[in-house]
């Protein structure tokens, strides 16, 4: 079974570019997710990330994490509405919940939760695009000369995840094949077995790594990669996007306050930035996509 966040060789600049260039390209979108609260800009960044994935033929690979993040986002909104008792616009007064007691649900708390949820969705989408398009072997190869132990751990984990996923799928299937008179499997028992099995598997993988030469301590040569087509465009888009986001943040045109009443900066600068992000960031990918279509007839 292929894990959800599975890398596969993909066409287009994101699929062939060196990892640090993809990182530079995606950085402005990640910065928006982690530092900017304006929902309009978050929506622009999230849409741009999803479109970048789709233009790199990674649509199906980012659809599942997106669905997961949507359910996580709904939970965040609900929890924030219950946990935050601030805000002037009360939608539900004296709502009784067990353990928590009497609570009010405010529009502002819902809005704050929605912004948090948007941040999660954008961050996960950016990560999903990275995971789907960037070959982990190239990342590990780049890390190995400078941090061999970290590269070893990351290699072990990156291999163990798909194996554990496959083991889990098989064990769940074996659970479905149990006769009606056999003891039911139960999630706890299954998880315990899976963890115990993963330990055995990790020993086998570690043995393979040892045989491949990880224990030698020889400093690997720093790999040299030639420039790939589209890398200049990606770097340019990333740099422009970064400049736009940082200058808008410095100018104070990305504001959002939930309390005491909702206040969103929707001035021309913010709207312009929300339009500029997708245009600037997607331009190199769209150009490459058009070239592929033309070449493909």
């Amino acid at each position, binding site marked *: 079974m292929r894990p959800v966040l599975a890398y596969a060789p993909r066409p287009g600049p994101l699929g062939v570019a060196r990892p640090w260039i993809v990182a530079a390209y995606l950085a402005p979108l990640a910065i928006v997710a982690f530092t900017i609260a304006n929902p309009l800009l978050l929506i622009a960044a999230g849409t741009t990330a999803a479109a970048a994935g789709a233009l790199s033929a990674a649509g199906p690979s980012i659809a599942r994490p997106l669905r997961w993040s949507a359910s996580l986002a709904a939970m965040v909104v609900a929890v924030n509405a219950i946990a935050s008792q601030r805000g002037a616009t009360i939608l539900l007064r004296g709502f009784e919940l067990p353990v928590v007691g009497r609570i009010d649900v405010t529009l502002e708390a819902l809005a704050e939760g929605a912004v948090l949820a948007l941040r999660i969705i954008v961050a996960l989408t950016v990560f999903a695009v990275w995971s789907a398009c960037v070959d982990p072997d190239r990342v590990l190869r780049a890390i190995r000369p400078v941090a061999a132990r970290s590269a070893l751990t990351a290699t072990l984990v990156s291999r163990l995840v798909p194996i554990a996923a496959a083991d889990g799928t098989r064990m769940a299937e074996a659970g479905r094949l149990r006769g009606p008179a056999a003891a039911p499997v139960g999630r706890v028992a299954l998880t315990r077995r899976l963890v115990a099995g993963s330990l055995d598997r990790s020993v086998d993988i570690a043995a393979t790594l*040892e045989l491949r030469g990880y224990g030698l301590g020889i400093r690997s040569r720093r790999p040299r990669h030639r420039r790939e087509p589209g890398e200049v465009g990606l770097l340019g888009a990333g740099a422009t996007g970064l400049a736009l986001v940082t200058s808008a943040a410095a100018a104070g045109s990305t504001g959002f306050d939930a309390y005491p009443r909702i206040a969103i900066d929707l001035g021309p600068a913010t709207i312009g930035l929300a339009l500029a992000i997708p245009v600037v960031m997607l331009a190199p990918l769209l150009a490459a996509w058009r070239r592929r279509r033309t070449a493909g007839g």
Partner: protein
Amino acid sequence: MVEPALVIEALEYRYPGAVTNALDGIDLRLEPGELAVLAGRSGSGKSTLLRAACGLVPHFHGGEVAGAVTVGGRSTRDAGPAELARSVGFVAQEPETQVVSTTVRAELELPLELRGAGPVEIARAVEETALALAIEPLLGRTTDSLSGGELQRVALGAALVTGPPLLLLDEPTSQLDPVAGDELIALLRRLNEEWGVTVLLGEHRLERCLAAADRVVAIDRGRLLYDGPPEAFGRAALGAAPELATPVTRLFQLAGIDASPVTVKEARARLRAGAGPAPAPVPRPAETQRPSRRASGSALSCRRLRVELRGEAGPRAVLRGLDLDVDPGERVALMGPNGAGKTTLLRTAAGVLAAAGGSIAVPDGAAMLGQRPDDYFVRERVDEELPGSAGRAALAAVGLDVPGSADPRDLSGGERQRLALAIAMAGRGAGGEPSGLVCLDEPTRGLDRARKDDLAGWIAELAGRGAGLLVATHDVEFAARFASRVVLLARGRAIADGSPLEVLGGGWYFATETARVTGGRAITPEQGAGLLAPDVLAREGR
């Protein structure tokens, strides 16, 4: 003087916490350019010996060790597996844990990068290794998109890419169909002959690899049982460990012919020289006739069955209009190349997969045992897995008598298989009887012949109690042993369906060794002996 590829002297080894030695006084010396087959029963110490020869024992596994192992002039006491990897390559049994990179190219590049090789050396070695192993088309693929056989080749490539003069392999054909298995053995022979790679090959299916071997090393309970040429191994095995004897050796022994040929070609030549021309046809043994359908209805009925599996590139048809019936009491071997749809059919019959077209009916229910019995065990006691009287009835149905307090993972391989099947069958059959259809998926993986005979015995027992048995297997010798009918699948359709003699008697790849010797007139040594026995020949005036 040329340095030996491997020297093992008085090697004793005990795993941490074990009470007995896994290896007990092994002496072995492999000269450069030899291809040796390592034979032994399940649990005899083959894997441990191979791991000792590459330094994983004791460096990785720990434990107590005595004696000495020298690989390419370096002692495994002083050098660990990584340092020895220039002198020895090791391919273990499980291909899934043998690859550590995302793409095939990166997997082959990794050992060289970790040894500080330059880009030119890496590119050349990867390309040459890929060409030698015929995996060049796979270089751009991700490792999680490969089949078991492809993974096995990639693991072999990663072990060979640094150019080690000694190659150790632990049951590399256990997951391969007969075609891929024969190809792998031929590839090892080519590596050995053309590049001078010394090979030590641990294998259960000796008939598959003895013809390629220069030497056989057999061990039993950690001790050396035989070390000599393949030509003398047959007689030695018949004396000391009959379950290691190949089908053709048993055939000649049962026929009373004083010879132990290694290959089918030699066996035929021996018969031509000493016993006259091949014997005339005799009536087919009754047990290989396809049984007539019973009036009571089918255990399984498929009509134009179409099943699709979902992949990255969308749905892919695996079964394409399959028609198949299995009657109660029938023992059907489902054979065919990897990817033919065998496992998919079993999973559909067991209700794991849904049909995309056509129909499938399993009137009295189906119990399925997958390739890994351990997947069925989630608790620490047998009676926790199978509680109450229904659980005891399920254990009785598979003839398993073990204490309820036993940990399932502490049982022997055969007992684990039976317990897993009991878990799958529990509560399905009426009154403690087995369910209508019992599906087994590659049940002989890693089993020696004695365990396979046990398995064939309890398959017959289940069939005798009315269950229809549908067993997917690559093992033609095992199919000949247990089956009353063989169905050959290819590209999702049944391309041959008949008695074992009809299907396994006439092919090239899907034919037993006995069938090749007897020209397809018998498929098991017992049947063949009836044809070849000197008194039969004498009766016919030859």
